[in-house]
C-alpha cells in the first residue's frame, strides 16, 4: 500500500535533507582540510607566435612564474552541495503544489548553493577564500529554513479568533395567568355565518350541446 504524503511535508523533508548536506559542506570547507581540487598550472598569457622576448616591455610577455591557484579545500564539499541542489530541485519540481513564497525561498537557496559550487569549481586564477563558498552554503541553508517556515505557515490552521463575551439580557419566565386575568390567552370564537335575506334557489343545470365534428363552421 502506498501512502500519499502531502506535498508540503515532502518539500519540508527535502529541505531538511538539503540543509543537512549544505551544513556538512560548509563545515568541511571551514575545517580547511582536504586535497587541493585543482592542480596549479602555469598560466601563459599571450599568443606563442606573437611572443617576443620575455621582457616586461613586451606586451606578450609570458610570466615565468606560474600563477598558483588558491588553496580551496574540496573534500567532498562539491558532492555534498550537489546533493543538496538535487534535493532542492525535487522540491521545486512540486511546482504549483507549493506556495509562491516557498517556491521563491527554494529558488533562492538553489541560487546560493550553486554560486558556492561555482566558486569551488571556478577558474584557479580567480582568488577565492575558502570561507566564501562556505558562506554561500550557509546562506542557502538559511533560505531553506525560511522555506520550511513558510511551508509550516501554509499548513497552519487559522487561529481561532478571540471574541469578547456577549452579554445577553436575563430571561425571566413569567407564570401563565389564569382565565380572566390580565395577560391570559384570548379565546377566539368562531365567526357566525351571516344570514341571507332570501333563500338562494338552486340553479338549474344547463346543457350545452357541442357541434359534431362533421358540421360545417359558418
Amino acid at each position, binding site marked *: 500500500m502506498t501512502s500519499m504524503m502531502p506535498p508540503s511535508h515532502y518539500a519540508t523533508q527535502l529541505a531538511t535533507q538539503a540543509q543537512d548536506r549544505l551544513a556538512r559542506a560548509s563545515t568541511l570547507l571551514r575545517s580547511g582540510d582536504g586535497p587541493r581540487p585543482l592542480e596549479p598550472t602555469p598560466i601563459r598569457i599571450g599568443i606563442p607566435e606573437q611572443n617576443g622576448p620575455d621582457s616586461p616591455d613586451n606586451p606578450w610577455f609570458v610570466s615565468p612564474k606560474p600563477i598558483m591557484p588558491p588553496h580551496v579545500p574540496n573534500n567532498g564539499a562539491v558532492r555534498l552541495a550537489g546533493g543538496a541542489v538535487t534535493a532542492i530541485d525535487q522540491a521545486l519540481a512540486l511546482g504549483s503544489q507549493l506556495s509562491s*513564497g516557498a517556491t521563491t525561498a527554494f529558488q533562492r537557496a538553489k*541560487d546560493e548553493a*550553486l554560486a558556492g559550487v561555482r566558486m569551488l569549481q571556478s577558474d584557479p586564477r580567480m582568488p577565492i577564500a575558502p*570561507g566564501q563558498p562556505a558562506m*554561500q552554503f550557509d*546562506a542557502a541553508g*538559511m533560505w531553506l529554513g*525560511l522555506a520550511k517556515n513558510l511551508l509550516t505557515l501554509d499548513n497552519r490552521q487559522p*487561529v481561532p*479568533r478571540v471574541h469578547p463575551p456577549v452579554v445577553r439580557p436575563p430571561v425571566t419566565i413569567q407564570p401563565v395567568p389564569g382565565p380572566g386575568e390580565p395577560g391570559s390567552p384570548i379565546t377566539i370564537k368562531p365567526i357566525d355565518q351571516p344570514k341571507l335575506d332570501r333563500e338562494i334557489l338552486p340553479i338549474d343545470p344547463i346543457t350545452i350541446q357541442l357541434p359534431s365534428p362533421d358540421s360545417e363552421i359558418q
Partner: protein
Amino acid sequence: MTSIMHPALAASRIADQALNSLTAGNDVLLGQEVRPMHEPPPGTSTFARAAVHGETALGHISRALGMGVNNSLSRPVMSAFLSAQSEAQTGVHMLRATTLVPADPNQVVLKFDGAKLWLDMAKSLIQLDLGGSRPQIEAPEAMAR
C-alpha cells in the same frame, strides 16, 4: 559628531520596526491589543486599526528598500524585503477592501506572519553579509548570458 550607520545595519533596524508594526497589527486582529491611553481614536474599527499598523510596516519596508538603491544591500536581502512588502501589502489590501464580504482576520494574520518571516530572513542575510564580504550572486539565467 554625527555617526553614520552602515546602510545594511540601518535596514536591519528598520526591519525590526516593521516587525513590531506587524505584530501590533496581528494583536489587534486577534483581540490581544494593548491600547495606549491616547490612541486609537474612539470609533476606529478593528480592521482600520490593524490596517494602520500594516501600513506603518509598509512604510518601514519601503525605507529599508530605499537603503538598497545604491547596491548597499545584497540582492538576496532586497528579495527578502520585497517579498515581505508583497505579503504585508496583501494583508493591508484585505483589510481595506470595500467589498460587501468582510475579510477573514485569520487570513490577514497569516499574511502578516508571512511578512514577518521574510523580514527575519532579511535580517539574517544582512548579518551574514556584514559578517563576511559576500560577493553578489547573479541569477543563473543572467550568468548564462
